[in-house]
């Protein structure tokens, strides 16, 4: 009955007083009770709804790297195991101001370092489609709670792929807005020049709805821009035709079934009257080295504050992945190596941006697979150093360039019944266009039934 209701429809029901917000929260808490021990998607569940002043409670899950005032925030690290922030992040503040109720904080890779949630100090989250597999990461908990309907929607964060990749593996929508569109204030920093909060949802409209709430300039984040925010919910309903770029560079090494889904969608898009255009882009592999250097450098700097003097545990509580990243980042920034690594990486980053600028003169957006493969078994990751970088290879160029991008599910693999994710990469600050086309695809194909099938595994 209620299962699978979109966030927008819940808001509508609450606003029309057809349903009590507290009842909605109770419904989800009951589901969390039932399934979370199996999925390990929430680290902290917030049951304080009874004391909440407003009865307009729209439940939402939030990744555990957003500081939530009075609610424990760990970034999945034992270092912050008992850390209760004294302030509210801008994203959660805007959500709360818009009547949201934070259902709980979702599991992730510790400090967002990873693409599987396996680096979490509190154990990995299970993929709702197959409990022996990873939901992806780092926003794996957020993807899993949406996919299993332990929340109608969730907030994640992406540095390079951390929203889109878990959304792809867990079969939900994941929007990474343009860098600077959404405030990072209160988001525990990973790669500061890349980090970007965004929604994970069951419908395109929900993604647009949440972006509407969280987007916009923030006086606490100097990197947010003063750009006018379009009415996304309205804009996705416009009947627009786009020129869509596709490139072979993003198909190299991609699983055959994912490629099939990709070609199938191209046919549908043509049928809908969109123009498909072949483009040339720099191979995404260049983005890996650039991303690795810049992100590690920023990580080593951002984690320097955890000395245990003012709050939280001290640095002996860092896990091995964090330590590895601090070491590499420290190395690339050290005297005599800065020019060879960091500076060079920034130069190549500029080239990647220029490459996209050129392409976006010809096309409105780019269509590509989100991941080269579908969800891996838990434990597979340890076999590959730089696993995350490989899984996120198709996400990194857009992240490096600060572009907006969206993952949407498009069918299941025949061989193991796992969600396939495809993505649209849009121009800077043109979220409304990638949302619009995703919405068109949703209307035309219902994402080949992925979301509905996913929910069936988790009855009330």
């Amino acid at each position, binding site marked *: 009955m209620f299962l699978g209701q979109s966030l927008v429809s819940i808001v509508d029901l609450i606003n029309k007083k057809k349903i009590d917000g507290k009842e909605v929260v109770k419904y989800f808490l009951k589901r969390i009770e039932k399934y979370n021990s199996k999925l390990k998607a929430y680290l902290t569940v917030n049951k304080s709804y009874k004391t909440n002043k407003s009865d307009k409670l729209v439940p939402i899950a939030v990744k555990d*790297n957003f500081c939530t005032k009075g609610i424990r925030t760990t970034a999945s690290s034992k270092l912050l195991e008992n850390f209760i922030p004294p302030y509210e992040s801008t994203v959660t503040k805007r959500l709360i101001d818009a009547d949201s109720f934070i259902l709980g904080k979702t599991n992730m890779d510790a400090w967002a370092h990873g693409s599987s949630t396996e680096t979490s100090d509190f154990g990995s989250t299970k993929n709702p489609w197959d409990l022996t597999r990873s939901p992806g990461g780092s926003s794996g908990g957020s993807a899993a709670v949406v996919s299993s309907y332990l929340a109608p929607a969730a907030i994640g964060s992406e540095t390079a792929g951390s929203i889109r990749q878990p959304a792809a593996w867990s079969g939900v929508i994941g929007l990474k807005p343009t860098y600077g569109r959404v405030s990072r204030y209160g988001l525990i920093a990973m790669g500061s020049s890349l980090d970007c909060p965004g929604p994970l949802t069951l419908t395109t409209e929900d993604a647009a709805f949440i972006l509407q709430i969280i987007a916009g300039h923030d006086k606490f984040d100097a990197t947010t821009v003063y750009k006018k925010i379009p009415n996304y919910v309205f804009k996705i309903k416009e009947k627009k035709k786009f020129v869509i770029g596709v490139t072979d560079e993003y198909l190299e090494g991609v699983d055959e079934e994912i490629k099939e889904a990709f070609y199938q969608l191209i046919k549908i898009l043509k049928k809908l009257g969109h123009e498909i255009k072949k483009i040339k882009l720099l191979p995404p592999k260049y983005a890996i080295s650039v991303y690795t250097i810049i992100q590690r450098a920023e990580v080593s700097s951002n984690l320097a504050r955890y000395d245990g003097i*003012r709050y939280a545990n001290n640095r002996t509580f860092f896990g091995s992945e964090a330590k590895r990243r601090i070491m590499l980042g420290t190395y690339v920034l050290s005297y005599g190596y800065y020019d060879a690594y960091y500076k060079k990486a920034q130069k190549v980053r500029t080239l990647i941006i220029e490459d996209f600028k050129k392409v976006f003169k010809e096309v409105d957006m780019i269509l590509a697979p989100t991941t080269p493969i579908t969800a891996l078994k838990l434990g597979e990751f340890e076999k590959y150093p730089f696993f995350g970088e490989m899984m996120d290879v198709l996400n990194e160029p857009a992240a490096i360039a600060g572009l907006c991008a969206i993952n949407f599910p498009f069918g299941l693999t025949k061989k193991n019944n796992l969600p396939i994710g495809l993505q649209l990469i849009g121009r800077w600050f043109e979220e409304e266009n990638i949302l619009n086309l995703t919405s068109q695809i949703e209307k035309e194909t219902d994402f080949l039934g992925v979301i509905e099938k996913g929910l069936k595994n988790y009855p009330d």
Partner: protein
Amino acid sequence: MSDYQPVIGLEIHVELKTSSKMFCQCLTNYFGKEPNTQVCPVCLGFPGTLPVPNKKAIDWTILIGKALNCKINNFSKFDRKHYFYPDLPKGYQISQYDQPIAKNGQLYLLIKNSKSKYQKEGSKLKITKKKFRIRRVHLEEDTGKLIHLKNETLVDFNRSGVPLVEIVTEPDFDNSDDVKIFLEELQVIIRYLGVSDADMEKGTMRMEPNISIISQKSKVKSQNLPDYKVEVKNINSFRFVKQAIDYEIKRQVEILKKGKQPIQETRGFDEKKGVTYSQRTKEEAYDYRYFPEPDIPPLVFNKDYVDSIKLVELPSQKIERYISQFKIRFDDAFILTRDKKVAEYFETIISKIKYQISKLSIKNQNYQQIIANFIINKKISTQLSVDEFINKLIENLKPKEMDKKLLSEAIDKVLKNNPKPIEDYKKGKINAIMFLVGQVMKEIEGKAEAKIVREEIERKI
């Protein structure tokens, strides 16, 4: 000493007195406040917090740069400077590395070429300008403060994030006197700009001299700088800067005389003993791992913006104007311009008194110099309002009517007690009479005009 040429450069830190901190909205007036009461998640470096730069602090840094005749970079940025210390909450200080707000400036010091104190009124005085180059002026954030108790150390973060301007000179100094004059002038300029109290004792102005010695004996070309330098920290007065530099010069020359090379190091200054002591050597130097601060977009200043930040008249400009416009002595112009409030007070009196000049009984005398004298000698308190000051001045300058009998008695007394000057005067030493005039004036407590006294004495001798 001529075989050994000191080379001295300065690093000066000035804490800006903006009302809020550099990157958050906490108050900056931490002095005397209870520890850790002026803090927030941002200046405590809490997870997820971000710095938002204080526009006023940036503008004031531009202003300092302009006052020091610097080029204002039209592109500037902040960088992270990493080091670990308990008073540094983020593990890095937000500073500026290769693109400071201002660079390549110079400060001219006005130095009088004559030491005569008996400069005649209105006569032209030659003032030489000595130039000291400014390498850069940049903006950063201050750290917290460690409080060392017997068995523990506490941290107070009230100061954490207070805007701090760093001014770096070229190594243009070769003696501690010039350094002291430079620093005093810089302090006056900073206070003129109204951007900082520049108080050494309160730590809102701090300085670190770099000292090394070129040995002429060694075959190094004299224009090359020595390949070491010694930085001295923890100095909190101008006097101590001079002491520390003099001590260092002596210490390093002694090492060089033994044919050895002083090592590159950071030394502290012990004000009780007046000596410097080793703190950190080059081997322990930090690698700060600078990189551009990703949380703050680059700063771009176009010409119009830089032009819109207006300088006030600086003390050296005032001195020159006082001398040329008011015809007052260099020394007096110098003293009057040390405190902007006093200078403004002086100028207000001058402009207001124009309308009452007839009330002043001064004949052919420079009234501006007279007013300057009254202020400098504190004959009339500058605490009074300008109008009150003028009234008192008029009163003071009223023609003095002296009881002729009393004057005559005083003169007789002085003449009786000073036979030698009288003799000198009679022998033709005209100036000797000035001594007698002075003595009489002293006797009558200045209650008569010197001219009249002189005439009376001349008549009596």
